[in-house]
């Protein structure tokens, strides 16, 4: 029950760290969407490029997050941002790219060729086809990619506490350092709850944006 006592005594810190965690993840996701979705669409026009881009994103995924922070530290130190929010957000964006780019690519590629044929045959331009048919058809799969990405980076953001980015990782990191069991547990619990809540919200969004005629 020490956990609850701890949370009761530190609830304002917990709330602040949750908020900090959330906005780091939110900002990273926003950047990843703005770069990842257009990239995913763009690479549908060129298969070789698609393989390279997705391969590259896969390589980034294999680097352990703590190692990535370590690798970025000397590079960003040049600009005076070796520690703090900047390396954290850069890493989160990089990790979020793969599920977003891959899902966008797959979703657009898997649009029924008959629909593309019908659209072209009716006189749609490439842009009209994308806007009227391909993107609406792809949106549910793209959202599913976002869902994967956001749950994953909520977890990774907890590690960003090691580079001084703040967030709920602070509880975990300091708890471990001080052998304060309740503190570690509190951090872990908050991160988990946050991930579950965001996942549910994204699931709701996924159903909402599925066009009427495509709901299962």
């Amino acid at each position, binding site marked *: 029950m020490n956990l609850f006592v701890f949370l009761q005594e530190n609830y304002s810190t917990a709330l602040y760290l949750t908020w900090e965690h959330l906005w780091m993840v939110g900002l990273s996701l926003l950047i990843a969407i703005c770069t990842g979705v257009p990239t995913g669409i763009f690479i549908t026009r060129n298969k070789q490029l698609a393989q390279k881009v997705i391969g590259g994103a896969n390589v980034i995924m294999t680097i352990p997050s703590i190692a990535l922070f370590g690798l970025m530290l000397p590079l960003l130190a040049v600009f005076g941002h070796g520690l703090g929010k900047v390396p954290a957000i850069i890493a989160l964006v990089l990790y979020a790219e793969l599920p977003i780019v891959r899902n966008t690519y797959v979703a657009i590629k898997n649009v*029924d060729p008959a629909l593309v*044929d*019908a659209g072209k045959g009716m*006189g749609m331009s490439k842009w009209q086809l994308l806007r009227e048919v391909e993107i609406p*058809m792809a949106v549910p799969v793209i959202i599913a990619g976002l869902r994967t990405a956001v749950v994953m980076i909520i977890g990774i953001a907890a590690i960003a506490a090691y580079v001084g980015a703040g967030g709920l990782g602070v509880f975990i990191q300091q708890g471990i350092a001080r052998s304060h069991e309740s503190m570690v547990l509190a951090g872990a619990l908050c991160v988990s709850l946050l991930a579950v809540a965001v996942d549910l919200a994204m699931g709701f969004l996924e159903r909402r944006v599925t066009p*009427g005629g*495509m709901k299962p």
Partner: protein
Amino acid sequence: MELFPLPFEKVLNRPFYEFVMIEYDSVTKVFGAGKTAVTATDNVTFTIERGETAVFLGPSGCGKTTLLRMTNRLESITRGNIRIRGREIREMNAQELRLGMGYVIQQIGLFPNKTIAGNIAVVPRMLKWDKKKIDARIDELLSLVKLEPGVYRNRYPVELSGGQQQRVGVARALAADPDILLMDEPFGAIDPINRDQIQDEFLRLQAQLRKTIAFVSHDIHEAIKMADKIAIFREGRLVQFDTPEIILMRPADTFVSDFVGADRALKALGLLRVKDAMNREPRNLARADMTATETLKFIEDNNFAHVIVLRGNRVLGFVSRKHLKFERGNLEALAVKFPEELGIREPLRDALSAMLLHDLASFPVLDDNGGFAGTISYKNIQKSILELYSEYQDE
């Protein structure tokens, strides 16, 4: 333009392109290059006239779909030209060209994210029609393809059956009232019962609209039913381009005769109408006020199987020898009703079927108002087939 010299145009006092819509001029398409090159269409030349339905027919891989897809530039042309109303399509903007032609495909291709109304509105919206005009057009088209606008306008494609979806597909292609329709096996994915019905409806629609239609099919029955002209392809070459009658009766070579099948005389029955074969001056007629004895003598003297009983120009039925023996009174009460009625516009196939089914050697034929127009018998049918055959043999 070279096909008709100028004086001809002047005599007719109207431009050539008032009646030629699509010209295929030595159209060749080669896929790939070098050793792996495949010639999909090879030097294909023919023209489709305004308001005419041309069916591109042939086994799969004969180049018919490629030719259709070249017509709206979904495929590029390797050599040769396609002209629409005299304009070379390669000099036109591809999108503009496509906006001016309806396109219907076998997979139907309705956009599942759009409602029925949204699907039909696609081309009018690209043409920047105002909303009121689009809405009115949607309702008009839905009624035209026999779908209640109030019921279907806001539904999604998944909620419709295959046949209904393709009706919407046709409506969508007609949305901006294009002169030309390109149809790639449009009824191929629909079950046989619905297919027959939707074909009939489409024929009725086409009789009103008189669009110029390029229609791809691999089904000879469909081709005979839908076509004004049939273009038969084999391995990319145009083997024969003629009316269905000529294709059936005078196939250009063994490939065509094999393709139309050994039963081509039976297929011709689906093509000929009752009015083409019927006897307009039959002798086996009796008035309703004739007596039984009188009629019996008339039948025996002429050796008829039965006589048709008329009152004015209405058919009451028929009487044969066995109905009249030992009977008194006039024919009004004795006439047996015919089990089926045949209209002048029905195909001979239906007439023959009625004869076989009801064991009657001749049937009365009714005109559009239900009045008596003549009779049709086995002999009439056979004669008309022979005539058709010899007509095209002599040519």
